[in-house]
């Protein structure tokens, strides 16, 4: 019974639904017909109107790229600015015969093969209505010629651009870096919409690290153009948002003094304020003119830079890894004081330096730089006079792994965290490192030369400056940075007793101001106190036999020692810590130390 009722009901429902479905279908047909009529009106009845509208529809949305933020030094002096420059661009879809146009343009202005190749590459990537730059940095004369003859060429645009310029040329090449034409690869790293219309991208240095900040926000304008692409009127204009300026901590004057002091020598200089970690000068020399890259460097000029034996493209400050040599002695000395192992206990520990050192039962003589020896001396004397034998013995007493641990605390062997692109970590060897890396056990002889910062040891100028600042502040954490607050890396403060710090700092002060100090030459005529340490790092391991012959004079310049100097001043209230490395500069005392003195003099005179 129930079943049957349900069936009847079901059939009834079914019929009702069928009616509804047919009504719906009728509705669908009516609506579709209405749509068809609308389309018919648009596409057939009013076709002519819309076809004309489409042809003459030259309303264009044009991107207005933002002006890049300026980069200044700590006093607001401009290190990277934007200067107006005129550029010639072509709109592909408005050009008739491209080759003919290029030939005719070529008679008016210089157009290189590279310009044309770049134009083709961008045309293949872009859309036919996007203007593509053919030549930038037009001279006044070229601009005038094009403006006068402009009517002959379809699809040609002359635009006033703002182009990056570096007023100090090579001086900040490794610091500020440079921008170059944006590449497909660069575009993958950023929001493509934000970068529409942007032609340059920070390729290195601060320009690269702070690309997104400096870039700003683009905007659009709506213009009406006639069929030939000439602008008739502007209908709407947005306002691009200029990129944020970046103020660096560096000081143009100090940077100039540092570069001038190096002259034609290759080297690296870092000066920073210990209390804050603010870098006041950062020079990698020789450098190059970053303006070349903005314009698009020719491949020949680029090859020349690449093949230059002095490697001007190489950032020596963050990537150059040098044997720290004797500049490591204050740090190892401090390790000795803290370990309290007899040789360095207070001022009583003494060692006799006969001019050489031998490991028990071994033949090999490890020489002190002073041929006939220093005689008896303590830790302070050994730092002041940079005695090698004392530190050979101290290193053996300490052992390589404790030395490694102690140096690591000063930041050696690890990047400093400076936000300036790739940074090398240097090397502080340990027995574990050697086993892992070279698969060999550690030999005592290697400990000996590690004691004077030779052997496997290497450090960057930046690490040396930072470690010097940590020493100057008696162990406080120092984070080198170029923009306030940028370096977030936190390191453990180095712990040592007050007397240990004082002993080492007093010794370093005597290096400059003591009568026997290795850098006493820079201690004359001075109204403040410098604590420093010289270093002369061997590039070329002279064999003992050669050493005996004292043939240093005939060694070519390339194999001469690197000259190093680390220092901070004033000793009581350190305001500047400096690391100077002069490649193949000979000795630290005669080459590197005077450069540091110039930096201090300038800095304190201009505070």
């Amino acid at each position, binding site marked *: 019974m129930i079943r049957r009722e349900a069936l009847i009901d079901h059939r009834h429902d079914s019929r009702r639904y069928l009616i509804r479905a047919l009504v719906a*279908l009728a509705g669908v047909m009516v609506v579709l017909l209405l749509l*068809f009529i609308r389309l018919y009106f648009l*596409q057939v009845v009013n*076709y002519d109107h819309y076809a004309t509208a489409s042809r003459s529809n030259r309303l264009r949305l044009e991107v207005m790229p933002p002006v890049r933020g300026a980069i200044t030094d700590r006093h607001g002096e401009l290190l990277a600015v934007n200067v107006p420059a005129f550029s010639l661009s072509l709109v592909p879809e408005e050009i008739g015969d491209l080759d003919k146009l290029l030939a005719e343009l070529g008679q008016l202005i210089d157009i290189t093969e590279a310009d044309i190749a770049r134009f083709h590459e961008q045309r293949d990537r872009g859309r036919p209505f996007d203007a593509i730059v053919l030549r930038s940095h037009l001279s006044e004369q070229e601009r005038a010629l094009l403006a006068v003859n402009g009517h002959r060429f379809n699809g040609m645009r002359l635009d006033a651009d703002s182009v990056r310029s570096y007023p100090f040329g090579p001086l900040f090449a490794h610091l500020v870096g440079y921008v170059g034409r944006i590449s497909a690869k660069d575009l993958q790293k950023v929001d493509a919409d934000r970068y529409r219309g942007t032609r340059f991208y920070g390729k290195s240095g601060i320009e690269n690290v702070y690309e997104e900040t400096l870039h700003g926000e683009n905007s659009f304008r709506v213009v009406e153009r006639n069929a030939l692409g000439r602008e008739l009127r502007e*209908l709407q204009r947005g306002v691009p948002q200029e990129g944020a300026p970046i103020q660096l901590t560096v000081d143009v004057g100090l940077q100039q003094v540092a570069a001038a002091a190096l002259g034609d020598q290759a080297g690296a200089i870092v000066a920073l304020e210990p209390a804050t970690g603010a870098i006041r000068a950062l020079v990698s020399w020789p450098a190059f003119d970053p303006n070349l890259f903005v314009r698009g460097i020719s491949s020949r000029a680029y090859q020349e830079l690449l093949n230059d034996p002095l490697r001007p493209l190489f950032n020596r400050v963050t990537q150059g890894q040098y044997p720290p040599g004797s500049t490591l002695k204050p740090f190892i000395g401090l390790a000795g004081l803290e370990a309290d192992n007899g040789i360095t206990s207070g001022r009583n520990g003494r060692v006799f330096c006969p001019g050489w050192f031998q490991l028990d039962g071994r033949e090999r003589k490890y020489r002190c730089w002073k041929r006939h020896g220093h005689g008896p001396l303590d830790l302070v004397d050994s730092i002041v006079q940079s005695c090698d034998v004392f530190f050979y013995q101290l290193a053996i007493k300490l052992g390589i792994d404790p030395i490694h641990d102690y140096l690591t605390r000063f930041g050696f062997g690890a990047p400093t965290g400076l936000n300036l692109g790739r940074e090398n970590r240097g090397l502080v060897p340990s027995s574990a490192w050697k086993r892992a890396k070279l698969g060999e056990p550690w030999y005592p002889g290697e400990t000996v030369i590690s004691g004077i910062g030779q052997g496997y040891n290497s450090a960057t100028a930046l690490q040396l400056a930072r470690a010097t600042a940590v020493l100057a502040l008696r162990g406080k954490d120092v984070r080198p940075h170029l923009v306030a607050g940028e370096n977030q890396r936190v390191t453990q403060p180095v712990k040592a007793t007050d007397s240990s710090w004082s002993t080492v700092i007093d010794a370093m002060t005597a290096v400059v101001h003591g009568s026997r100090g290795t850098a006493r030459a820079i201690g004359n005529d001075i109204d403040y106190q410098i604590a420093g340490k010289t270093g002369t790092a061997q590039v070329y391991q002279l064999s003992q036999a050669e050493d005996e012959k004292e043939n240093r004079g005939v060694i070519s310049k390339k194999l001469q020692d690197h000259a190093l100097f680390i220092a901070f001043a004033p000793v009581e209230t350190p305001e500047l810590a400096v690391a100077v490395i002069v490649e193949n500069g000979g000795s630290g005392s005669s080459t590197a130390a005077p450069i540091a003195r110039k930096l201090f003099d300038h800095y304190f005179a201009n505070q």
Partner: protein
Amino acid sequence: MKSLRVDGLLLVILLALMVVGLAVSYSASGGNVAVVKGQLVRIGIGLLLMVMVAQLPPHFFYRLAPLLFLFGLLLLVAVELAGDVGKGAQRWLDLGIMRFQPSELSKLIVPLMIARYLSERPQPLPWIYLAGALLLIALPVVLILRQPDLGTALLVMASGLAVIFFAGISWRLMATGTGLALAMIPVVWHFMHDYQRRRVLTLMDPSSDPLGAGYHIIQSTIAIGSGGVYGKGWMNGTQAHLDFLPESSTDFIFAVFAEEFGLVGCVALLILYLLLLLRGLQISVTAGDGFGRLMAGAIVAIFFFYVVVNIGMVAGVLPVVGVPLPLISYGGSSLVTLLLGFGVLMAIRNDQKMWTK
């Protein structure tokens, strides 16, 4: 299709539409292969889900409806609380691997719920059931309106109302309801966002604001009109390729299609859509039970609303609301929803085949 129960005719029409979609997306993106690849992945996912859903018995959806409805509401509340803001509206839910628009799913879940609620009810429908159905529709619609997404809210509402229509509401009640709805227009106008009002106003006279809201309509009608009878040819649409035509590969893709393929192409496309509708209606009319009928009818209706609202908007006869052109527009959420819907349709079809055996 022996082991996989898939409706061959539906599948062929769906595939044809999606191929057209890929071709137009490729052209609209200026020849970007990545766009096509991305869309292919979405199509693959959508088809897979469709085939899976097609294997289930319709009764399964009947039982699942309340649960799905609750789940859908929860998702909408989640968007309200933690949604991603995209283009000024909070519609997206970030699922880690992909961002999803829960309001899309509502277009399917709401009619499903109403279909269950109204099937097997005495006829003609007593007004108490009608009121219940309207309340069930209002809950998600209000949440979607808050995002704010007027287009989707209207579609969800329409899909729910379609079920009520199919379920057998009396003609007199329907006339009264329509009258009431018309009377409500001033009230709705009051609650509309400024941008929504502007869209309606500019529809009346696009040239009043050629650079603002009217701009889309002017540009898209020029694109369609300049296509003429035969169109400018694939990849040759100059107008649609202008940067102006906004959303040229999503909501406004029909303008690109009409410009490149002309009236002939448009008619062919409308016929394809009509074939899909006819097949859907046929399945609904012959469905095994009341629930299947209502559900199938609702799916057909949603699909039809999509087509009409989108083409109407692009052709300048309906206000601009964000509704994609089904199976053609570039984008994931609506494609997946639609294919899920067709999966349900196939499931209903499979069920009736078993009945006739």
